[in-house]
């Protein structure tokens, strides 16, 4: 009689899962229906026409003498099944290397993540430092703000020719493009977070006579941390957007360049596969950010 009620997931959580899964199901189904080809119907076609079509590779003759559409020749957008087949094939040997441009998907993901990580992490360190310095000094903030305002809206890709000319190496250029893409949001957010720290926290720091460094580490950074992480997250998104075209333009192997390789192969299923991989890599890295954000947020 007094048994506790069974613990269930909150209803919102249950519902959101159901909606997500059914949206996925409906989406894939519509995709399939939109791309499915009707079975080849030879009625009304002369033997000449059929022969020509077979010669062009549009249709093939089966063992029992019937004509069907050539499954090898793709017209229009491939369906979900083709993409799944491509994914299975790619993940069957993720670490192969069959020539300069044909590296396994595992390698490609590694290249992109490494390139991304180097650019993003170095930019984050620089951006937080700049942000803290200008956030703490109103004078410096005003002095540097015009430069930041001019530099901020420039697309990171616009820097690429100049960077390529300067560093003369596509690998480093790609990293620097990621660097430029992840700089500004973090600078802006850090400066904002640092300059809006509640006055009492700084007063306590000065009462306790903390040194400049102690004050930074014990009070300023933790107080501004939620805003800084929000900035890092925006930077992260913009860097992920920049890394794909940077790889394409520079011909640097990675999941971004994979879409271009598949385009050159006219392998549309491959392009779709590559797009999905970019998205999934982004989701996984973003989940890491969620954890970081949870570590540093506080409630007042």
């Amino acid at each position, binding site marked *: 009689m007094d048994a506790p009620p069974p613990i269930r997931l909150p209803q919102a959580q249950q519902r959101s899962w159901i909606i997500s899964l059914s949206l996925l199901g409906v989406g894939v189904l519509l995709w399939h229906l939109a791309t499915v080809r009707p079975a080849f119907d030879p009625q009304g076609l002369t033997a000449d026409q059929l022969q020509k079509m077979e010669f062009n590779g549009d249709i093939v003759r089966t063992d029992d003498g019937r004509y069907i559409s050539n499954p090898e020749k793709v017209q229009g957008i491939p369906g979900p099944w083709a993409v799944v087949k491509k994914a299975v094939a790619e993940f069957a040997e993720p670490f192969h290397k069959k020539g300069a441009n044909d590296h396994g998907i595992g390698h490609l993901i590694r290249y992109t993540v490494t390139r991304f990580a180097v650019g993003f992490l170095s930019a984050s360190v620089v951006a937080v430092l700049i942000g803290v310095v200008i956030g703490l000094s109103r004078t410096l903030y005003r002095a540097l703000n015009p430069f930041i305002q001019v530099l901020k809206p420039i697309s990171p890709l616009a820097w690429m020719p100049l960077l390529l000319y300067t560093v003369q190496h596509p690998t480093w250029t790609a990293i620097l493009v990621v660097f430029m893409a992840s700089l500004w949001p973090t600078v802006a957010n850090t400066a904002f977070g640092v300059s809006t720290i*509640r006055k*009492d*926290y700084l*007063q*306590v720091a*000065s*009462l*306790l*006579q*903390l040194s400049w460094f*102690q004050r930074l580490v*014990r*009070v300023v950074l*933790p*107080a501004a*941390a939620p805003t800084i992480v929000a900035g890092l997250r925006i930077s992260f998104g913009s860097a992920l957007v920049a890394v794909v075209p940077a790889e394409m333009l520079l011909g640097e192997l990675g999941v971004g360049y994979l879409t271009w390789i598949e385009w050159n192969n006219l392998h549309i299923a491959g392009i779709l596969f590559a797009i999905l991989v970019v998205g999934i890599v982004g989701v996984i890295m973003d989940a890491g950010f969620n954890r970081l954000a949870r570590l*540093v947020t*506080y*409630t*007042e």
Partner: protein
Amino acid sequence: MAFLSVERVSKYFPILAGATARGREAVFCVFKDVELRLAKGEFVTLVGHSGCGKSTLLNIIAGFEQASTGGVILDGKEVTDPSLDRMVVFQSFALMPWLSAFDNVRLAVRAAHPRWDKARVREETHRYLDMMGLQGAESKKPALLSGGMRQRVGLARAFAVQPKVLLLDEPFAQIDALTRGVIQEELVRMWTATQHTVFMVTHDVDEAILLSDRIALMTNGPEARLTECVEVNLPRPRSRETMIDTVEYIRLRNYILHFLMRGSRAPTAHDPQPAARQGPWAQATPLSATPSASVLDQAENTVNTSRTV
């Protein structure tokens, strides 16, 4: 010589651009020629209306703000910057929300004793948390603590530094009436045990009478003056229960309320003498360690008097 002396301190603020009165100086005088002297171990409270510059004066003593004229001398040295010998207990608690109660106090202990090893710092932190009755709440973040508990952490942090002067800036204003009385008693207990010099700012007359040795009265701003210092000749230990019926309590309370009412009608800013009284001053008798008044009684009696004016 007094332990802490506020010498002819005035504070002017620039008037905001756009609000400049024609033909007048573009400065605004908050208070003028404030004189106040505290003996060592004395508990002095400053009472005045909102806006008379009470907190500004406290900020000047703390070193957060500079006096426009005059100065503050503590133990023979002029006050210029905030330092560990003047700890403030804030109305807003000012606890670091990302640190637990324990870490908040530990930060202060570590700052006050940079040479101590970790074990000793931890021990001292525990000592002060225990003194404020915070056992079991050490690992909680301030957001999970009630207002009363947060201010206990604030008091523990301030006492843990063992400052020369404790500055309390309306420390109980954001605490509910039921809890306020209990914490006030704990503050008295800590103060009796540690013999700190305390300067408190409040607009709660009952609170001032309960806690103080002397009450300084400030007229309304602008150009507020500290015109009177009233001695509280009530025997310690005091409790609300026993105190509120005494003739002396009623006399004091009415006197202060009348002063505040007068001050709220017409500015008495041109009072001739700044009347901070110095002189021989009896040390308070030690308090017993246990709070005696019951919580409910205190709740009934906690009337925020200045608001009724």
